[in-house]
């Protein structure tokens, strides 16, 4: 197996272990599309906290909510549902996904 593939397999396995141990937390916030608008959703909640016309406004509100929840982070999604960035995760690991 090529070195890059081996590295990637190792990352996937480690990520799976971390996911199993992390569980769910209600202190993560997501900014995710809602039709043509953007919803701020607390993880685990079925209803959005609020829906915004502009993504920037949704991100700003999500950041303030996460800050009030002490130390958790905001996951900002692209329109296709993928992750654009994770804001507020602790530094160190994180590659190019995590923003300060």
């Amino acid at each position, binding site marked *: 197996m090529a070195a890059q593939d081996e590295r*990637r397999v190792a*990352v*996937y396995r*480690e*990520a*799976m272990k*971390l*996911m*199993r141990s*992390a*569980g*769910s937390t209600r202190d*993560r916030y*997501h900014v*995710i*599309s*809602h*039709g043509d608008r953007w*919803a701020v*959703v607390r*993880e*685990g909640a*079925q209803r*959005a906290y609020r829906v915004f016309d502009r993504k920037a406004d949704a991100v700003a509100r999500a950041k303030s909510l996460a800050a009030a929840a002490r130390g958790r*982070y905001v*996951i900002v*999604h692209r*329109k*296709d*549902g*993928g*992750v654009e960035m*994770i804001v507020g*995760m602790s530094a160190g*690991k*994180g*590659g*190019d*996904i*995590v923003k300060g």
Partner: protein
Amino acid sequence: MAPDNLDIPRFCGNVFINCPFDADYRPLLRALIFTLVDCGLSPRIATERADSGESRVDKIKELIRQSGLSVHDISRMEPLKPGDLPRFNMPFELGLDLGCREFGPEPLPAKRCLILETEPYRYQKVLSDISGNDIKHHRSDPETLVRCVRAWVVETVGLGRYNGTVIWRRFGECVGILAAAMAEAGGTGQDVEEMPAPEFIRFVREWKLANP
């Protein structure tokens, strides 16, 4: 009489996915996989087995035979590059699936399929034979695809604990946790984006167990 080696309970929950595997389609494929798992079904995909000694078409036929449900996305039949021939794999596999339903022994006539397209009536120009089948249009938008697939699952098998909006948000939570876990594990954005479909299916199943 059922064919030998056919596990009937699993047959009812297996969903054969027939779709493009290029990078452009990946967001739609992930949304499709997640929606099926979140509705309690089991996605089956040609890349789940990497045995290079087995022909692809034999793998496809076996998956079709084992799956009581199927989703065929024929929205990407156009050539990848100008001047290339159209991609015929998706309509070919749709034909195999419909043939299996029509001519196969029990329980194969009970198979049900969903056909996905981008826009209404576009397929009629090139594949009018399938008029009358269940065709839904996702407009190349994963959020819309989630709603289409969820609606079909409810209509076809009666499953559907969550509505389309909630499934879409749960999808966001799941991929968010994936990205966060990958970042913790030292992965990059490219690792997240290029996670193979079988790995993604395993991840979503794990997430679903923890988030029923």
